């Protein structure tokens, strides 16, 4: 009797013990990005506790800085007058506690290499800003995810690049600091160096929220390809006038190299950019930003242009000119070309694009362009922000100012440490290259000049044109300005619709542009589903905002 009493209970206990494992086992899946209650809630708690604390601290600091401001401002004024525009002014923080500012940037880099750069950088900032800097770099694949986590969990982030997160979203959710005042007091040089048009691209409401980088601010569209094959087949690119011409080139390549894909996608996108102003997302665009001043927001996917493009790609895919299953390919286009399996790919371009990609791929690259350079709001990104959870907003601003104006700092961040990550090849012209025996894959510190605030005060890389920076300026100045440049769409009001449309967009768009789906059948379905998901509401809201923006501008 007694035995029987105990046995089932024990049996059940064991069963339960084993069973408890099940949900946890299921969780061991990586990239489980759904921010479910468990993880989230833990963060909430932290934020709830810490946000109370930070607000106290920051309000205390605000009052403190009000006292400090006049003196700091005065020194800054005196400094900038004394040292002219050449040397960035130093702001005096010697009366403050030394801190460590945290700097986040995308792109692969080993921790050890980052520490090396941080150490060198701290040597400069300790003297100028009375602070240390700790640089963290995270690869493209997980940067946004990790940044999101850090921003939502109340972790300390001082200066960071939001990569493809929109400034308006970050500003509206209160994750970044408004910068206008800070720029006027601790970032004068930067404030003056950037044009009002460019500032407008990162203004939300009445405040500037991010510092646009000094890089290519426009893009032209084209097709990049291997020069050796172009030469081998005797192709004269200057004779290629339109997509039909490109088609003939690709056909020739296909005939000569049947084992090679004439065109490959870049991370699953055959055509990442179209000849429209996408206005933040693709839901509601300006169909002709090149020649017209019209600010009419239209549905790209219903347009004749989109249909023609998809039909063309579908035809090309049928002829075997495009890599099959393009939209599922997770490889970068450059890697595909590097592997020798591909001839070329579509891309947006800029001055120096050829040499940049020749360096990256290790094969000589030539380009053929089909759309002229245009400057749109999104080309002023990724910009640089100061996190709401910064330990010292003023010092962060001063650091950002240093990154924008001090060649030594800019070089350090872009190229790394001399002798370790690069060596000087021509001191006179300021040309550098990888040190002996090292290359892009072994150096451990990814070089992404355009991602940093100011590439134009850094060294030129081996193979770059000597006039690269002046050419780049010329390129920026002569580019067509989209009539909507400076406008940023705030999607807070239509987030439900955007979420639904985003899913439908992933379902159809990459596959349509990759030539995998028949546009005759698919586009009507695509448009229908978008309508059901509320693209009309998004377009109406966008139109309302852009009209208000235009009226405000006048």
């Amino acid at each position, binding site marked *: 009797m007694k035995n029987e009493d105990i046995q089932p209970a024990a049996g059940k206990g064991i069963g339960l013990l084993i069973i408890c494992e099940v949900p946890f086992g299921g969780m061991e899946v990586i990239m489980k990005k759904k921010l479910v209650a468990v993880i989230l809630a833990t963060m909430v708690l932290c934020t*709830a506790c810490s946000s109370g604390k930070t607000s106290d601290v920051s309000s205390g600091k605000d009052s403190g800085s009000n006292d400090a401001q006049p003196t700091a401002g005065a020194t800054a004024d005196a400094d900038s007058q004394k040292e002219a525009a050449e040397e960035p002014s130093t702001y005096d923080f010697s009366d403050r506690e030394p801190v460590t500012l945290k700097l986040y940037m995308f792109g692969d880099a080993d921790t050890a290499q980052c520490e090396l750069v941080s150490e060198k950088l701290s040597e400069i900032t300790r003297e100028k800003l009375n602070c240390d800097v700790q640089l963290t770099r995270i690869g493209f694949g997980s940067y946004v995810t990790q940044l999101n986590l850090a921003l939502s969990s109340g972790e300390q982030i001082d200066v960071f690049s939001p990569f493809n997160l929109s400034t308006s979203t970050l500003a509206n959710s*209160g994750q970044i600091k408004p910068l206008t005042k800070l720029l006027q007091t601790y970032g004068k040089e930067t404030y003056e160096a950037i044009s009002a048009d460019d500032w407008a691209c990162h203004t939300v409401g009445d405040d500037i929220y991010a510092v646009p980088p000094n890089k290519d601010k426009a893009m032209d569209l084209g097709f990049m390809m291997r020069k050796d094959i172009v030469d081998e087949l005797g192709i004269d690119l200057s004779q290629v006038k339109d997509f039909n011409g490109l088609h003939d080139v690709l056909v020739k390549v296909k005939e000569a190299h049947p084992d090679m894909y004439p065109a490959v996608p870049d991370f699953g996108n055959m055509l990442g950019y179209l000849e429209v102003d996408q206005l933040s997302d693709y839901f509601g665009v300006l169909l002709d930003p090149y020649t017209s001043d019209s600010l009419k927001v239209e549905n790209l996917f219903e347009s004749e242009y989109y249909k023609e493009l998809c039909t063309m790609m579908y035809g090309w895919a049928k002829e075997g000119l495009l890599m099959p299953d393009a939209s599922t390919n997770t490889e970068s286009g450059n890697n595909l070309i590097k592997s020798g399996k591909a001839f070329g790919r579509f891309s947006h371009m800029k001055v120096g694009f050829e040499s940049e990609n020749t360096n990256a791929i290790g094969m000589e690259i030539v380009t053929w362009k089909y759309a002229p350079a245009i400057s749109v709001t999104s080309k002023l990104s990724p910009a640089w922000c100061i996190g709401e959870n910064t330990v010292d907003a003023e010092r962060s601003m001063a650091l950002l100012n240093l990154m924008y104006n001090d060649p030594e700092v800019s070089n350090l961040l872009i190229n790394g440490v001399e002798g370790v990550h690069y060596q000087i090849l021509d001191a006179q012209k300021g040309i550098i290259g990888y040190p002996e025996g090292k290359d892009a894959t072994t150096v451990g510190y990814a070089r992404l000049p355009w991602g940093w605030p100011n590439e134009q005060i850094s060294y030129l890389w081996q193979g770059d044109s000597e006039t690269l920076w002046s050419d780049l300026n010329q390129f920026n100045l002569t580019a067509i300005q989209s009539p909507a440049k400076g406008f940023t769409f705030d999607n807070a009001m239509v987030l439900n*619709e955007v979420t639904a449309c985003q899913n439908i967009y992933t379902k159809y768009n990459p596959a349509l542009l990759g030539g995998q789906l028949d546009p005759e059948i698919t586009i009507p379905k695509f448009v229908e589903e978008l309508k059901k998901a509320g693209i009309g509401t998004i377009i109406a809201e966008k139109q309302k905002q852009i009209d208000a923006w235009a009226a405000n501008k006048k």
Partner: protein
Amino acid sequence: MNTATVTERRRQKGRFARRYFRYLPLYLMMVPGMIYLLVNNYIPMTGIIIAFKQVNFRIGILKSPFIGLKNFEFLFRGDAWLITRNTIGYNLVFIIITPIIAISIAILLNELTKKGLKQFYQTVILVPYLISIVVVSYLVYALLSTENGFLNNTILPLFGIKEKIGWYSSPQYWPFILVLTQVWKGFGYSTIIYFATVVGIDQSYYEAASIDGATRWEKVKHVTLPCLKSTVITLTLLSIGRMFYSDFGLFYQVPMNSGPLLDVTNTIDTYVYRGLMQNNNIGMSSAAGVFQSVVGFILVLTANAIVNKVSREDALF
């Protein structure tokens, strides 16, 4: 009469006290686990409020304005029917197929007499469970890729099929591919659980059955399966609780995020991920989490109530 009940009660009380005292060390051993549960699973539940707020980090979560159910709206828009169907449909299939396969294999394993072989098979069937889903997705890709895939280049030509199949743009195959992948990956783990139960069945039942002249099949039918019943029910109840969740890796990584497949691969988790990846909206993502938990909770309660009606002793609570 009266005094008798009083003494009876007193005696019972004494027995209770003694029993508690006897089990005290066990209760003490439970304390760390309880604290862990409290800290890890219960306190964070307060985070549910995020789902009802328009979070603004500048003023803090607690001070952010309440916006009612607005964060939940996006779950019921556009493809809502499709993602619900996919999430629940696939889970139902998994819940039915996995135990069947796992139990069959557990019983077969138990029939093996060589110890070495038994351990070898146990290890082999557990291997897929231990492989990261990203690796699994590339294994699947190696099989299915249009250009270099094993199926298109080696298997199909053997059967005289020359035309290459674009697996990643043909949704009709994916319900099978996904179920196959999931079962292949997950059955090893369930098998081990069932195997542990099978091993634990009292041998005397089998002896008695042998004396009664039962065949092997009859022993399985009348001894093993009935003894497994409560494990099966408990495991199933728990999977029902997670029926509104989907394995993100399985539905996002394995189909390589291919657009044309979305009709059969989009589940609630991938929908939320795709929709919010760019928008970074903490309120909406937690709304999705809360919604999943609430539905899961209701499903568990309902399933348990049904079990209570049918076979009381096997219910969870």
